[in-house]
């Protein structure tokens, strides 16, 4: 029911003009309504519901990443139309709309020009299938079927049954389910769209950061608080959907002679037009009413920092230690019985750049797992990581991908847009760099650039976007995990050589069994733990500070060559991630273990650097 009030609000613009505060009131009304318990889950989501099931001009939400910010545009905030038959002038409102009514009086004195900006938004890159699935299901569960009629009824009944009778907990553990359900979510909308109009739309590049991504991209019109949004922010946007076919005026439809006559129009290159005014059926417009910045996109956690979140957190904290132990055991199995590597992997997964001191990002913890068994082990490992974190991407560092792939976003001045690259990721995305795929050969210049970009990302947690005449630095917060045979060629905060305790004859089978042995409920607990542990605050007492100082001095005394400030940095990060009272002791301990292991490795391999 609630979805339709937008129409009521926007249509009678004539009377609304007399009251200038109406805009603020609209926003307040919506915000108030959305604050109500669960009300936000009644709003259909562009992520889940295929576009053609959504009613135009209705309220929708969209969970997305701001991929590009276009230039601000001026529009007719208020304008006057003249009815050709009655000659009556009517004042109308242009806010939250793309297209004016018929018969605009361009010379009217009542026209008010206002400013808005367009953001190009894409679904969060690398969002794990389980995250999509759960958010889809939870939306489906809550939405009262009456208000969902337009989209639900068109769906096949079989599917509906499926959804209702299978509460998510009973379903089989993920892999099978994931792929099975996949086709229903973000994948459905584009696949049906991109294939249907065949040629004319397939060349439309939706500019997703990661290759093989699907989902609706959206042009979000932003009216308020322009400065508060930044590139690569993850937002949940509530807004009015606009898919007016008038917007679909592609270059080829235009009469070329008209273009010649009007030079202003021809200034826009076809590329630019395609990037900025794609057909609304493919890239819908969303007029933002309200946007909520997302701290995480884990659907198992309450997203808003409300009371029920703190309640949720405190209730989970009780379990925390046990969940952690279980997770550690699970990871140990996954890492072939290597408990130390499992502990480091766990720490890596919950690390987070929590602040920056001048140029130094604090809290980053890049892990280099060396000595990984070859063949598909790393791939399986990634699948397991993917099952645990809401956002991830595996970059196979083969020579070909490094030379051909675009990692760093680049400004395309012809189309006037930021062409995305694989390093344009949302915060806390797990980037899995698979160096075992690297073979001998030569990196060309773009390959070198890509490697440099990865190095910068790891060392400084920033990506220098290429603006052709200059570079612009965008800070990021990406958890990088490097798997390699020997020591990685990329820098890392911490290198752990993997020491398998078991050597299963069939790796595939081994991992699959471990994987299948976990219940979904258990996995869900892990997922909650990982997301939650990251948000916790750390503090340190004076005694610990003292202990750290003493320990450091002692360590230096023993072996001044190998213990440097760098090591202290790493141990402090580990201590802060461990985030318990004996964090420092633990950090010291595992670092010692790790160090002895690397020493051992060195003497084994002899000449390894």
């Amino acid at each position, binding site marked *: 029911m609630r979805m339709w009030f937008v129409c009521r609000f926007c249509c009678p613009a004539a009377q609304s003009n007399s009251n200038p505060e109406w805009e603020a009131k609209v926003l307040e009304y919506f915000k108030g309504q959305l604050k109500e318990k669960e009300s936000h889950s009644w709003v259909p989501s562009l992520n889940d519901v295929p576009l053609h099931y959504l009613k135009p001009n209705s309220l929708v939400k969209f969970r997305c990443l701001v991929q590009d910010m276009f230039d601000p545009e001026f529009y007719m905030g208020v304008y006057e139309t003249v009815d050709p038959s009655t000659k009556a002038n009517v004042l109308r409102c242009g806010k939250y709309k793309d*297209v004016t009514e018929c018969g*605009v009086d361009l010379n009217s004195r009542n026209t008010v020009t206002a400013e808005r900006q367009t953001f190009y938004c894409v679904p969060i890159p690398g969002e794990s299938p389980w995250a999509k699935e759960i958010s889809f299901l939870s939306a489906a569960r809550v939405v009262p079927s009456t208000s969902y009629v337009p989209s639900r009824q068109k769906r096949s009944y079989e599917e509906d049954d499926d959804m209702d009778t299978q509460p998510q907990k009973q379903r089989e553990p993920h892999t099978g389910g994931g792929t099975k359900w996949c086709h229903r979510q973000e994948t459905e909308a584009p696949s049906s769209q991109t294939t249907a109009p065949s040629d004319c739309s397939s060349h439309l590049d939706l500019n997703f950061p990661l290759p093989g991504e699907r989902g609706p991209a959206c042009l979000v019109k932003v009216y308020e608080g322009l400065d508060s949004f930044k590139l690569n922010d993850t937002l949940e946007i509530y807004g009015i959907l606009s898919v007016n076919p008038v917007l679909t005026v592609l270059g080829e439809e235009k009469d070329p002679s008209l273009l010649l006559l009007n030079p202003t129009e021809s200034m826009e290159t076809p590329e630019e037009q395609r990037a900025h005014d794609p057909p609304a059926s493919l890239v819908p417009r969303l007029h933002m009413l309200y946007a909520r910045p997302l701290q995480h996109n884990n659907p198992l956690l309450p997203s808003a920092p409300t009371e029920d979140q703190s309640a949720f957190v405190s209730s989970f904290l009780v379990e925390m230690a046990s969940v952690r132990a279980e997770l550690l055991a699970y990871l140990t199995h996954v890492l072939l019985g290597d408990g130390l590597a499992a502990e480091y992997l766990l720490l890596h997964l919950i690390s987070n750049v929590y602040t920056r001191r*001048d140029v130094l990002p604090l809290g980053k913890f890049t892990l280099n797992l060396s000595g990984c068994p070859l063949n598909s082990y790393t791939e399986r490992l990634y699948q397991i990581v993917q099952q645990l974190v809401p956002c991830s991407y595996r970059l196979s560092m083969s020579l070909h991908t490094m030379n051909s792939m675009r990692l760093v976003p680049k400004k395309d001045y012809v189309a006037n847009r930021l062409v995305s690259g694989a390093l344009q990721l949302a915060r806390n995305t797990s980037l899995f760099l698979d160096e075992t795929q690297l073979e001998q050969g030569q990196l060309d210049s773009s390959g070198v650039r890509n490697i440099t970009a990865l190095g910068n990302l790891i060392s400084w947690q920033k990506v220098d976007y290429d603006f052709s005449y200059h570079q612009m630095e965008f800070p990021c917060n990406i958890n990088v995990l490097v798997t390699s045979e020997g020591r990685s060629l990329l820098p890392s905060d911490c290198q752990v050589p993997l020491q398998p305790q078991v050597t299963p004859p069939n790796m595939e089978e081994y991992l699959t069994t471990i994987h299948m042995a976990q219940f979904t409920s258990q996995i869900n607990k892990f997922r909650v733990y990982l997301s939650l542990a990251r948000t916790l605050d750390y503090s340190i007492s004076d005694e610990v500070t003292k202990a750290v*100082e003493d320990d*450091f001095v002692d360590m230096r005394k023993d072996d001044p060559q190998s213990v440097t400030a760098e090591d202290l940095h790493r141990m402090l990060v580990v201590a802060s991630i461990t985030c318990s009272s004996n964090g420092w002791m633990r950090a010291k301990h595992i670092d010692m273990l790790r160090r002895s292991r690397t020493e051992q490795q060195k003497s084994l391999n002899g000449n390894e650097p």
Partner: protein
Amino acid sequence: MSSPTSTPGRRKRNRDDIPATPKSTAKAGSDGLVSPPSQRRRGQDSSNGDLPAMPTSPGTDIASPAVHDTSLFSSPRRSVLPSEVDMSSPLMYGTPSSRVEGTPRSGVGGTPARQRPDLGSIRKAPQVDLHSEPPSADGAVASEQALGQKLVIWGTDVNVGTCKEKFQRFLQRFIDPASNEDENAGLDLNEPLYMQKLEEISVVGEPVLNVNCSHVQSFDADLYRQLISYPQEVIPTFDMAVNELFFERFPDSILEHQIQVRPYNALKTRNMRSLNPEDIDQMITISGMVIRTSQLIPEMQEAFFQCQVCAFFTRVEVDRGRIAEPAVCRNCNTIHSLALIHNRSAFSDKQMIKVQESPDDMPAGQTPHTTIVYAHNDLVDKVQPGDRINITGIYRAVPMRENPRQSNVKSVYKTHIDVIHFRKTDEKRLHGLDEDSDQKLFTEERVQILKELASKPDVYDRLSSALAPSIYEHEDIKKGILLQLFGGTRKDFSQTGRGNFRAEVNILLCGDPGTSKSQLLQYVFNLVPRGQYTSGKGSSAVGLTAYVMKDPETKQLVLQTGALVLSDNGICCIDEFDKMSDSTRSVLHEVMEQQTLSIAKAGIICQLNARTSVLAAANPVESQWNPKKTTIENIQLPHTLLSRFDLIFLMLDPQDEAYDRRLAHHLVALYYQSEEQIEEEFLDMAVLKDYIAYARTYINPRLNEEASQALIEAYVDMRKIGSGRGMVSAYPRQLESLIRLAEAHAKVRFSDKVETIDVEEAKRLHREALKQSATDPRTGFVDISILTTGMSATARKRKEEVARALKKMIQSKGKTPAMKYQQLFDDLRGQSEAAITKDMFEEALRALADEDYLTVTGKTVRLL
């Protein structure tokens, strides 16, 4: 007095008045389409002039949008009234046809006016007069002061007569003795500035008068306000005023066309981001970088039609982008006999330029905005992609006509800027003049804060500790970098033949890996506005200097500048300096002393300025610093390059318990301190940035007498140290370094005089750096020759001794024409009391070979 009336052809395409209804449509045209109506300030302005009651939009129904829309897209439709202007009217002083006449002429009447498409449709007011309509109640009125009323241009509070008078007064009287713009070079600052410029025009013959808006503002604030608010009415008035004045004064001068006034430096807007609907149709100045330029677009201004039957010809002017083709020949009355003759039509040039916000203006985390700019006539091709420019122009917004077949339009306006004036901000860098003109403007309060900070006695320590607070200690290194950030005073000795003296301080950091050298470099790179960060590993010589490439769009060869040129007036941070290839390093020789870069490539031979400070970091060759070796031996850099660094610091692990403890404490605090605590302790990075920028711009310290004496003494002392042991311990380069450092230190204090304390600190720092880097590990003495010649004096002495001993040994062996290499080496080792390495032995052999005493072939040594 000449009437303001000018050629009726100065209309813009977008103008949408219907000529048949001059009065009402003139209003509608100028306001309706060209500007979104929100921008009109009719109501409040009418209080100034006694404008009669406002009209109730008569005739707007004629210009209904539907008609308008189709008219723009459909083929030229027959006009009701092609602009029929009485060419012989005495009101005319610049008919379009006069352009074709080639006879020399002078005076206002004789010189043709040139269209100003940059101003848009401006001539509606005079046009009303021209059509012999009496100035009616709502009509716009020109300078007809005979009417005894104070009349203004419709919709503004601009009274043409008053405005003209004011501007003429401004031109005649404005004096700016404090002017330091380079445009005014060679002008007498105590004479009226613009009159001199007019004189210049009469000599040079370039009919463009650039007027600095801030001058107008200081002269007459009201006139300035009018200029900003109603540029499209006021600038033509200025044009008239200037031309009258000019031809009165120089009645005989011949110009190509009438003088055009080009105002610049409108103070209103500085940043592209701050443009908003309020600015539409106002004059603005923004800065940005050109990213794309279109090809030249010929825009027809006047079409030439000739009758195919009787050869009668007629000219038709463009009206809102349309040509109204005359259907009937006026001479022979044949229908549809007129044909367009392209060669005799008049076109004007137009170019689309895309400008992007300059990176300095942008808030972090957002993408830069772009704006479309149209350049007209002689401004076409004035700028190239990559140029940083200040644009003064009129901000426009026109509604989008999305689809002619649909009557509902997209509710979005297209915005662009019609340029009036370009000013390249980086032009001067090429000409080698001093600092930028677009220096950061500091507010009074900010300057006050900075000065307060400068007056504190411990400002030097404060600033150095504010530098990279996350990096622990290394106080002297930070101090050195701080002085580098400030730089010395630039001196010009080109008259005496030495050219520019380097004012930039170069610093090399070397030391163990993992001593946060890179972090320091990153910090500096982020701190300075024009910093570049490169790594020696990945950069090539061309990446540092400049390379020639073919522009994909224009197919022209263009010079792409590299890191060193880009960091002109900034700091170039080069990490992994030791990993750089020799050829790459060699380009640094010129940059680091002469501060220029010579390029001879693909037919492009030029010398670019690269007045950059170099902050480099190098790792020792053996990955760990070997304290038994000299700096040169540790980092394996050519001494020719090393001697160009003013300060060379070693960043070594001190291996000292107290230090370790402090370091641990520092790091723990770094990780666990809250944001606020950090803020309290250290100076804000923004303050530091401003402080440096201010000092670099405004403070130019000079040596005072005592300081000069102190420097001389210091230099003499340094020389003395060495001369006692037969070594040279200082070269003039070191003296220059000392001077630079002393000046930089004076800048830190915001002092215009370099005093003794500055010299003391410079000496101390220099000595510190030398102590670290130029100490001979064998003797423990500071020996500058390690850095200047690559070898310490003692080492050289030892080399000679070994060679002598070897020669003696060979001679003592008697007549043996050939010897085994290995055996000779063993013999020498056995003989000598000091340990002799293979290197030393080889060196000795080489020395003897140079004396033509012996030759070495493979494993045997032959005497000659």
